């Protein structure tokens, strides 16, 4: 088992109540491994307290990266959330805490 943090990097983005989380392996050779291990189910389980809605995983073979688009992830939305981090900017770091 290893932390995702050592294999890949991530950037969180926000649109309304949707969080986008990219997952980009440091070495492109690790892309198949990341695709195999970091499934939608695994992400939902790992970030269960945030991700309330549908999650779509896009596989961008052209840049050997994944993109998770997570609905209902930002406590109602960036502009009205009571969270200290209403944009969910910190979610990328939490995603990388996943053990695979």
């Amino acid at each position, binding site marked *: 088992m290893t932390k995702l943090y050592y294999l890949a990097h991530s950037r969180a*983005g926000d649109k309304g109540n949707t969080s986008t989380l*990219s997952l980009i392996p440091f070495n492109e050779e690790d892309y198949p491994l990341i695709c195999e291990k970091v499934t939608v189910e695994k992400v939902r389980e790992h970030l269960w307290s945030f991700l309330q809605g549908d999650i779509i995983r896009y596989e961008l073979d052209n840049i050997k990266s994944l993109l998770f688009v997570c609905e209902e992830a930002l406590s109602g*939305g960036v*502009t009205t959330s009571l969270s200290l981090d209403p944009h969910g900017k910190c979610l990328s770091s939490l995603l990388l805490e996943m053990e695979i």
Partner: protein
Amino acid sequence: MKDTIRIGCGAGFSGDRFEPAVILAEKGQLDYLVLECLAERTIALAQQQKQINPELGYDPFLERRINSLLPFLARRKITLITNMGAANPLAAARKVKELCLKQGFNFKVAALTGDDVLSSITGNEKVIENNRTISESGILVSANAYLGIEGILEALAADADIIITGRVADPSLFLAPMVFEFGWTLAEQLGQGTVIGHLLECGGQLTGGYFMDVAGKQVSNPANLGFPIAEVSKNGTAVLTKVAGTGGSLNLRTVKEQLLYEVLNPHRYATPDVIADFTKVRLKELGKDEVLVTDGTGTEAGNLLKVSVGYKAYYLGEGEISYAGYDAVDRSKLAITILEERLKSDEVQEIRYDLIGLNSINEDKLNVRSFPYDVRLRVAAKCTSKAAAQRIGEEVEALYTNGPAGGGGCRKYCKEVIGIHSVFMEKDNVPFKVTLV
């Protein structure tokens, strides 16, 4: 017509640093400088400013940014495009013209208006986020359509040196000069241009900002982070780079992160100009801080524009207080139990308690013995009235003498929160206008 143009991004949000744009204008050999300063909610807040004073409602940093850039725009013959007009592009353009004349430059300044569609909102439009009608969101304070490249193209054709817009889709600010210079018309070309615009629009986020850490993702000289430039060719290929000697890094990793940033569907990234496809994009590192971007493509855009609608959401009340030492967490939890009872009210719709902390009280910051050494209790609530929101902080403050032992450093805060919902509107119902001042 030129075969290549250089476009720099000198700001990625309203509060961005000032120096990078000046460095770009001075040393970037730019043809165009774009300042993207308008977040989703900024325009709603600016609209309220405009209601108080009809000559305001534009970006609060407009004068500071423009003043610092004018000499370089003149010397290097750079065209400036910015959405700092916010809720009042006309007043902003008049102000910019005044600043130009003060510095002795007779620039042509253009204002693009038409994005403000509040008076066309019927209230029956469906909210994209929740499928209810927009009138159910609350009292509406603003409605701004995301315009595309057309208005900026008209201003460029009128030979404007400085173009001030309100709400325009961010990538369109960058795509417009490409289309103007290269005469692009095909969706494939607009798609690739939108990819380039999307990569540039957040400024330092392409060059190591929001990227760096201290282990695997170090960047050089981060304090002097330089902002990005795209050298775009007529055939659509672009080389991303930055001014030599500035800090940060621009490489495959930083570009991949930004390419996917805030993308809801990489197959269909919709703007008013095109539906861009990011899944064919190819990236190649050419050298230090140089990445080649090719193969972005797209299909024709629909005839609907997204409209951001600002509405009065609630009053936010906040209070914070710190507890330190052995049972800091337990005393914080006791404080929460007390507040839960004291803050019971029909006017409090939702309340949230956070325990924050590592070593904010301890002076000997590097020698944290217990974990956590101290805790800061934060209380935040959505309230239906200002008085109820103010009471949140007041009750937290009252914990000093009416709560657990050793509570310190109380702060309180209250403000009205404007929420944003989106609706669609037919393009034909959103006429734009270019005014030269």
